[in-house]
């Protein structure tokens, strides 16, 4: 029982990170129907910016987090502007290949700049190094930090999407781009804004992963990126609460499988769940079934 609770707590931390990345995937997919393969590399770059801020610039964690989010925002918008916007009317597969190209570019660019070796995040002392016990369960302050940051960001996101003008525009464009355009919504700005929010969340996830696992490398985005995408599909792609739910579920499953002796198979289990969900309910858990009309 204790072990189960402990695994749940670990699962929540990992799930928060997946959820943050999955939100970026799901929003971009919802709005332009693109699997943005470069998204997981934005997350990687966020981790590196956090690393530079903490080690070279000697900043605290919160400023590092904010700077990483800001730079990732700019990066996300730039990627959309340079690589995806010229292909707005091209086939989806062409855009997908471009996204893969951008992903390769970011990864290899980072390898060139920062060398392929693993970097170790500095240990953060003070309050964050502490952990406390409830019964026989240990809760790390880092886990609290991750959960708190994630919850704050998600509330902020919900606020932006549900309560602001630009959020309304985002929902409108993802529902029907042409109709939104006819109503006088600037579609390009809205898409840029979606990329900005998604990339900011990915940047935050990158810094949090660096703090939690201590090590980062230029290819760190690959597998978490895939799993976060699985999380987005699991919850119903294009649906924001779905991505959160999926992220926590996938994180939980992964830590459970690893915790109960199947650590070699944890990735396989995640993908098996994905395929099962896709076959049983292809639109994801929260997705609505849309009938195709001829």
């Amino acid at each position: 029982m204790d072990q189960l609770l402990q695994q749940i707590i670990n699962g929540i931390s990992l799930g928060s990170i997946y959820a943050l990345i999955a939100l970026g995937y799901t929003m971009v997919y919802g709005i332009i129907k693109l699997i943005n393969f470069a998204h997981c590399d934005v997350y990687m770059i966020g981790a590196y910016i956090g690393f530079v801020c903490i080690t070279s610039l000697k900043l605290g964690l919160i400023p590092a987090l904010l700077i990483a989010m800001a730079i990732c925002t700019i990066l996300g918008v730039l990627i959309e502007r340079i690589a995806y916007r010229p292909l707005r009317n091209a086939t989806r597969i062409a855009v997908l290949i471009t996204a893969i190209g951008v992903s390769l570019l970011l990864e290899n660019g980072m390898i060139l700049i920062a060398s392929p070796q693993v970097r170790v995040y500095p240990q953060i002392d003070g309050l964050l190094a502490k952990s406390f016990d409830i019964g026989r369960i240990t809760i790390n302050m880092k886990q609290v930090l991750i959960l708190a940051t994630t919850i704050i960001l998600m509330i902020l996101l919900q606020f932006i999407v549900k309560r602001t003008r630009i959020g309304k525009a985002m929902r409108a464009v993802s529902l029907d781009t042409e109709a939104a355009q006819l109503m006088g919504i600037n579609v390009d700005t809205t898409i840029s804004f979606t990329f900005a929010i998604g990339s900011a969340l990915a940047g935050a996830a990158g810094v949090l992963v660096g703090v939690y696992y201590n090590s980062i490398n230029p290819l760190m985005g690959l597998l978490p990126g895939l799993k976060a995408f699985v999380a987005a599909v699991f919850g119903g792609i294009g649906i924001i609460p779905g991505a959160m739910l999926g992220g926590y579920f996938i994180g939980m499953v992964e830590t459970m499988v690893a915790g109960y002796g199947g650590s070699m198979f944890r990735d396989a289990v995640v993908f098996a769940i994905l395929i099962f969900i896709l076959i049983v309910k292809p639109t994801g858990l929260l997705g609505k079934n849309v009938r195709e009309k001829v």
Partner: protein
Amino acid sequence: MKKILKAKGFKMLTALVLTYIIIQVLVSTNIINDYMQATLVTIFINIILAVSLNLITGFTGQFSLGHAGFMSIGAYTCALITARIPTTWGFILGVLAAAIVASIAGYLVGLPTLRLRGDYLAIATLGMSEIIRIIFINMDDITNGAAGLLTKRFVNWTWLFIFTVITVYFISNFLKSTHGRACISIREDETASEAVGINTTKYKVMAFTIGSFFAGIAGALYASYFYVIKPDIFNFNKSVNILVIVVFGGLGSLSGSVVSAIVLALVSSFLQAFSDVQMILYSLLLIIIMIFKPGGLLGSRELSIAMLGDWRAFIGEKFKALRSRKEKKTTAKEDLDNDPVENK
């Protein structure tokens, strides 16, 4: 006799034999050295992979991101068989078994997942190939885990040439058959083809099975040439690389796949010289090509001898136009030169 000489098949055959002889001469005179021969082999394997994926993605319109998974099944099957029977016959048996096992896997994977459409199918096939890879990593007793298997070399480039020709020939003929046309109709409009009585599930699974059959052959050839196979070779990046070849050549163009497999292999072996920035240049090239030519090199057209004729006519016309413009210019110049004289 004239009829035979004029037949399309004969021309094709001559072209193939000529290609073979030219490459063989280059190899035996050592102009194509061992290193370049490895590139040559990579080109042939990539052609088989790209053409078979093009059948699934380009012609049937089913977006698959898991081609490397079927390749790995073929590679391991063949490696395990040739380890037991290390002869040429063992190799041939291995290739056949590899193709059959891979196509069975393709059938089993395709049957449930092909109900999905578009990106969902892509993600499902991606998940499948990752699962296959993880299973290979964990079957320590048989596959030697992440370290991989050591294999012997059974093939030279002649074998690869033969298998590549068979693959392209089979798939291009399949596409001209009733079944092939049914597959193409699914790409054009799934609902409409279902409405005219085409069993879409059957043909989708058929295309997927045939595609994995040839991916299995490519894997077997890989295992029989490159001494070592390990699960990480057949990861997500490998699937993506195959897809890049297909899209770069043009979805729905077999000759496009062949041309782009050759071009991309040459580009990346040329970029070896700049090993630091090799991948950066490659990815930049990819982005730029996609932005300026999103349909790929050939779109969905096929390269043919008739097309070469068209090109010749096209170039001839341009040339003529250029010359006539030049003539006009010179005459205009003469007019100008003459004018003042006349005025005087």
